[in-house]
């Protein structure tokens, strides 16, 4: 077993002459390390050259590298010849991605563990000590650098000629603004353009009331929603059923007789006496908390739950928030039935739809 243990060399030792032909390569390495304030204090072969252990480890590492080659080849074979195009059902294509992952993973793990074994088991172990030198620079150096910088300021003469400094700052400030201006000017967009934050797709267009329609665009008759049922409805306008009117989705609820009575009373308490039509009420589906669709309706309790943050709204009490982080009730859409027997919105929402913001009145 070749164990070389160096002693701490006394400081100020003469550097070796690295051109001395008697020095081994390791001697030169040690000398180089010393010049970087590194002392190799312990250096030990982990395996005896030519021993059984060395041969075994070499075989192990080689096997891992060969496994990598095999797995990588398998990856290529799978990639090229395995059927990969999606087909419904349980076809072989469902195995395509798992097989790619498996072969690629094994290939990379093989080379990874091979290199790790090589490094950890076959290379000599060592303990080296390097000085940190992380103290502050010498006080002399600090002084010199500080004075140089101060002298620099003297040379510039800013103190003697203050006008230069002031005028430079005065000149550069607008340049900074020039850099920011196109970015801000280009991006800025007035949130109150067309009063967009306070209107939805249900705003009557040219005096015509907007119909409530289903997701497929068909208008709705009262008989289409059975008692206790509910339906997501949209404004019957162009792109009404799309993200272009992300604030308009509305929940049309057909309340049972007793719930409807409670709901009407609650409506009249807040001056919404005529918002319902018969036993039908329509509330905005967009949660007043963070804007998710509040879409889980519990028939028995008449609670509407938003699945994002669990705000709960009591439909029979003007959709007042009764639990969770929402602080504002869901706006109610005043509805009626037009002469053809379809639901229409009497007017747009009278309260602001969607998440709250600073200037909401």
């Amino acid at each position: 077993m070749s164990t070389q243990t160096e002693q701490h060399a006394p400081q100020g030792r003469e550097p070796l002459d690295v051109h001395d032909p008697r020095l081994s390569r390791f001697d030169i390495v040690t000398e180089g390390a010393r010049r970087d304030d590194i002392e190799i204090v312990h250096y030990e072969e982990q395996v005896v050259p030519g021993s059984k252990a060395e041969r075994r480890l070499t075989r192990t590492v080689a096997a891992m590298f060969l496994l990598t080659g095999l797995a990588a080849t398998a990856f290529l074979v799978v990639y090229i010849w395995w059927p990969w195009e999606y087909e419904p059902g349980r076809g072989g294509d469902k195995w395509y991605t798992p097989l790619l992952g498996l072969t690629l993973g094994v290939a990379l793990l093989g080379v990874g563990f091979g290199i790790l074994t090589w490094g950890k088991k076959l290379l000599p172990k060592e303990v080296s000590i390097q000085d940190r030198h992380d103290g502050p620079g010498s006080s002399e150096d600090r002084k010199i650098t500080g004075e140089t910088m101060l002298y620099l300021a003297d040379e510039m003469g800013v103190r003697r000629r203050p006008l230069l400094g002031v005028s430079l700052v005065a000149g550069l400030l607008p340049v900074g603004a020039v850099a920011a201006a196109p970015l801000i000017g280009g991006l800025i967009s007035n949130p109150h353009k067309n009063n967009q934050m306070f209107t939805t797709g249900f705003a009557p267009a040219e005096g015509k009331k907007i119909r409530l329609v289903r997701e497929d665009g068909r208008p709705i008759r009262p008989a289409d929603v059975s008692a206790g049922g509910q339906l997501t409805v949209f404004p019957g306008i162009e792109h009404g059923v799309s993200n272009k009117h992300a604030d308009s989705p509305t929940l049309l609820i057909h309340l049972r007789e007793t719930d409807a009575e409670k709901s009407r009373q609650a409506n009249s308490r807040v001056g919404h006496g005529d918002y319902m039509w018969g036993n039908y009420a329509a509330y905005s589906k967009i949660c007043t908390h963070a804007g998710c669709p509040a879409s889980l309706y519990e028939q028995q309790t008449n609670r509407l739950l938003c699945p994002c943050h669990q705000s709960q709204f009591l439909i029979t009490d003007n959709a007042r928030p009764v639990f969770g982080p929402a602080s504002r009730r869901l706006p109610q859409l005043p509805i009626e039935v037009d002469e053809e027997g379809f639901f229409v919105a009497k007017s747009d929402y009278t309260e602001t739809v969607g998440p709250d913001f600073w200037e909401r009145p």
Partner: protein
Amino acid sequence: MKRRKFDVAAVPGKAAGGVDDRFQVATPLRKLLNKVFPDHWSFLLGEIALFSFVVLLLTGVFLTFFYEPAMTEVVYNGSYAPLRGTPMSAAYASSLDISFDVRGGLIMRQMHHWSALLFMAAIVVHMMRIFFTGAFRKPRETNWIIGSLLFWVGFLAGFSGYSLPDDGLSGTGLRIASGIMLSIPVIGSWVTSSIFGGEFPGEIIISRFFIAHVLLIPGLLVALISAHLGLVFKQKHTQWPGPGRTNENVVGERMFPRYALKQGGFFMVVFGVIALMGGLFQINPIWYFGPYEAWVVSAASQPDWYVMFLDGSTRLMPAWEINIPIGNGYVIPPLFWPTVVLPGILVGLSTLYPFVEARQLKDYRHHNLLQRPRDVPARTAVGAMAVAFYIVLTLSGANDVIADKFHISLNAMTWAGRIGLLIVPPLAYYVTYRICLGLQQHDREVLAHGVETGIIRRLPDGRFEEVHQPLSAADGHGHAELDYVGWVVPKKMNRLGALGPAIRGFFYPIEKPVEAPVSPGHPPVEPRPERAEIGSGESRR
């Protein structure tokens, strides 16, 4: 003409000489080759983050070749039959194409997602390692701040990437993000409308998120990571206390070849694990969620894990709305506090912590030696408090799933989270503090009295006591107390070398088991011949 002899063996030497003539690299290269790194398993956690980032870059570049960052409405006509004929954004359609119509696209997408999750996880665990061992202390405060920023920039990278497929799940997340921006007092609506180019969702947000996700944020990440690594290199790595290790030196291995080999191998292992995960474990199956439609959501809509703590804080926040009755009236919605103020406080607390601690302890010296968490109970307890806070929030981010799976009332889960957020962290502080003190005490006890041998002795008067093996030879008075040096105290007999490993071999014993010693201190009956020759105790023959 005379033909000159061409000496192949001399080529590398001559080439190297030529390079050095021009760039003078010999000295700096020697310094680099020789640089000493201390080694410990916990130093590898940050590297997992670095390696995942490399995988993110590789897979991300692939994805950009096929992804179309546009919200133009198209009708899907790809291979995935259930969605054929559905109107959707070009972004979602191209994400589906990556999953179904690009050969090997799905594994790239899944590897990208998994490495993003791993990146954030490694950052968090690495950050905890730095915190609990005191590696953030002077002179490394700057690197601690860069590291904290990396978490938040990584968070932005993750969220912006999560939004790009424009599927039902990520669109809901995006809408919540717009709600969060809206909640900022005074400027909220202007900020939101400027970012989204009008009212949510507008028609430009996906392309803006795309350029942020593939250029601006990665650029920032690369810059911060470079600075982070550069500082580690310049300031040299911290090390655990131990034999020969002082505040002024680094004890370890030279960077080349062994250390670098291990790094390279570890990178391949991380890469390989990500490949396995990307191939074998499904992540974010966007085709089940459908395109984003403002009126569709399903229960159990959870964000990626590193966003869940903010989701949790949002769920737990009571409905406290602040109304300011001036003019038409102004509102600060409850959403503002858990999603804007809380992250702000967290950034502030984490960046300031090194300075707060230094001020508290009036400790302004350089620290290059790490501390065991038990030796600084107050810091460890504060860290445990922060972890407890984070865990309560993260669990609350999934409280609907927990309520559903364990048949607990959803409202009860919310209340448990609200109360838990207030009482679990202080509890964690107290318990951690006591555990630290207990561990400290046990260390001192072993140093004073020795290791428990498991041998019970009966005294002449009938009492029983356990025999302890002292760690050092007794002085004249029968005392053998050692000083605690901030490192692991051996607490088991075989750690002391009293017993060798019982049996060698993986499936079957390679040699016959070592005979148990007759009694402590006695040599084994049949000493293994090679033990006498072993240098470091770990060599193999």
